[in-house]
């Protein structure tokens, strides 16, 4: 009896071993490999090209690693490349972009989060209509709005000029002079804030709707008002959706070209516009290595954002999925 038990136990135990090279695995990994090649190969070419000197590039071996690594193109792209009359490289555009990005992201998210909160928990008469109109805004092609916004920014600037100067002149003082919104960074910040509003409001509204209504009711009975509930109850629970909103806005605004080229002027062009001007300049020889370095520099910010926040991003997207 004991012997047979021993015998039964001496055989192979545990789950059936899986073959590592099964057909399913080959298909899955093969597909993954193919697609990563598809995306990574151009990146590889860009990196190696940006590290080569011009003579080496002229040899035409696109895929070969640099024989002699040089950082010269990166330095040139950052601080020496010429666009129009300015020859201080992409650095000017970078700082312009930062100056556009920071206030745009903060302003749009601050307003949209309050919008979403009000539309989910403080419904008023016509709030659904208001929300629908806001969402329709996301579907209107930008092109139709470009020129009207030019006019609005110009007139808005003129109005500000009048309101800031005129009353002071009446009492014999000197006003701040002409105020311009069109062509200034302020104008572009406003445009980005407005255009981010539909999708961000939708995002926040859906998230706040998923927070139980009873929690909100309990807070009201506890004597908390609109802002106290927002800051003390809702915000601490809304971190994931803020991360999503920040990522969406940072990458979206950083990558924007259209608004940048229309609503600013050469001194205030964002990095993307400047990159275009460097790469597409028709004077002199094409410096491929500088172009590649400049492109990589411009893409660095969204790249870092994605790498740093990958997990949070996925979690937040799932949390803000379209509901109710």
């Amino acid at each position, binding site marked *: 009896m004991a012997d047979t038990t021993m015998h039964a136990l001496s055989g192979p135990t545990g789950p059936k071993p899986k073959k590592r090279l099964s057909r399913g695995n080959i298909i899955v990994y093969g597909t993954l490999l193919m697609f990563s090649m598809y995306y990574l190969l151009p990146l590889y070419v860009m990196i190696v090209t940006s590290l080569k000197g011009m003579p080496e590039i002229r040899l035409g071996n696109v895929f070969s690693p640099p024989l002699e690594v040089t950082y010269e193109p990166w330095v040139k792209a950052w601080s020496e490349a010429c666009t129009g009359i300015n020859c201080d490289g992409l650095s000017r555009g970078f700082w312009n972009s930062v100056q556009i990005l920071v206030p745009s992201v903060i302003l749009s998210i601050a307003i949209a989060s309050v919008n979403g909160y009000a539309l989910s928990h403080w419904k008023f008469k016509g709030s659904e209509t208001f929300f629908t109109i806001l969402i329709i805004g996301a579907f209107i092609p930008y092109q139709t709005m470009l020129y009207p916004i030019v006019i609005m920014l110009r007139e808005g600037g003129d109005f500000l000029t009048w309101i800031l100067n005129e009353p002071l002149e009446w009492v014999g003082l000197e006003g701040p002079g002409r105020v311009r919104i069109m062509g200034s960074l302020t104008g572009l910040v406003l445009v980005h804030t407005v255009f981010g509003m539909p999708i961000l409001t939708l995002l926040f509204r859906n998230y706040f709707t998923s927070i139980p209504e009873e929690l909100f009711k309990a807070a009201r*009975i*506890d*004597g*908390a008002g609109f802002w106290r509930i927002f800051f003390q*109850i809702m915000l601490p*629970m809304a971190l994931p959706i803020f991360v999503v909103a920040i990522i969406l806005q940072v990458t979206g605004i950083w990558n924007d070209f259209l608004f940048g080229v229309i609503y600013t002027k050469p001194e205030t062009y964002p990095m993307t516009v400047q990159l275009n001007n460097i790469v597409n300049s028709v004077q002199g020889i094409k410096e491929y290595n500088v172009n590649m370095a400049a492109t990589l520099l411009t893409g660095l910010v969204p790249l870092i954002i994605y790498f740093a926040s990958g997990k949070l991003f996925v979690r937040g997207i799932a949390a803000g999925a379209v509901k109710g």
Partner: protein
Amino acid sequence: MNIENPSVAIKSLDLNFGAVKVLQDLNLDIAEGEFLVLLGSSGCGKSTLLNCIAGLLEPTDGQIWIKGNNVTWAEPSERGIGMVFQSYALYPQMTVKGNLSFGLKNARVPKVEIEKRVARAAEILQIEPLLDRKPGALSGGQRQRVAIGRALVRDVDVFLFDEPLSNLDAKLRADLRVELKRLHNQLQNTMIYVTHDQVEAMTLADRIAIMKGGKIMQLGTPDEIYNQPQNLYVADFIGSPSMNFFEGRLDAGTFKTDGLDLPMVGYAFAQPKAADGNVTIGIRPEHIITGELVASAPVQANVTIDLVEPMGSDTLVYAQIAGKTCRIRMDGQARVKQGENLAIGFDPARASLFDTASEARL
């Protein structure tokens, strides 16, 4: 029933959501220290009424008075009410202590006073060891206790409960029900309690208001509701298993239907001379007499058992009476079998008679 100085008074309250009338001309006076239960199936407007009293919903018309003040348009926090929700609704990022003191901080109560009140509430509800925990680390019963504590610390006149026990499992529900009753005895606050569970209603309430379609169908003590339902709806709603109904005619004080004549001897008619006409009689399964007591019952009959459902504490027997399947509740130890004959008896004084057309009690 007229109540002098009611704690809560609801005066011809209407509430419409668009074209839907959720509450219709509702009047209700609740006495000081009373435990009132709003009972009804889902969609009857009971939670809506509670939200109106709390100030979370604006009524379309009518008034709400609490402690002699018209609070129809007052903020929830200014009404002197505390509310306990079905899902507990504790603030997840705050500790138990933070949850308890949030309302007091909003009301700018001095720190020393907050400490005192939190300590008192924690003692009453026996949650002192939990004060520094977050709600996520509490069990369902503990969470509901904290939720009650949140109303307790604010020293409110009226407690509002919105199905507070529905999220708990059966055993815990029974325990907390007893605790709630004890708490009411201790605090003597006015409490308004919404539930769809008639056991909770019967055990907790001083008075029950049964609601349907935004109206109160009957308002009375549990005893009145059980023994003298004022209409067919209440009669059918209260009691488990529910009442047996027979349609027939009232003819000179005798209920008549095919194969059954029931002289209504001893039945307390609302009007001494009830008019003859179509009526429905309701008989509770537990009021049908079986066993030795049948001999002394005013009305007696013999039936054949169709089906037996033994439930341990009682036995539910199905039999044909006057061509209708009828439920009879017997003792749990009754050893009866399908197909057997059963002698039954009945006292018409315990029946309920309703006008078939108007569904009102006769």
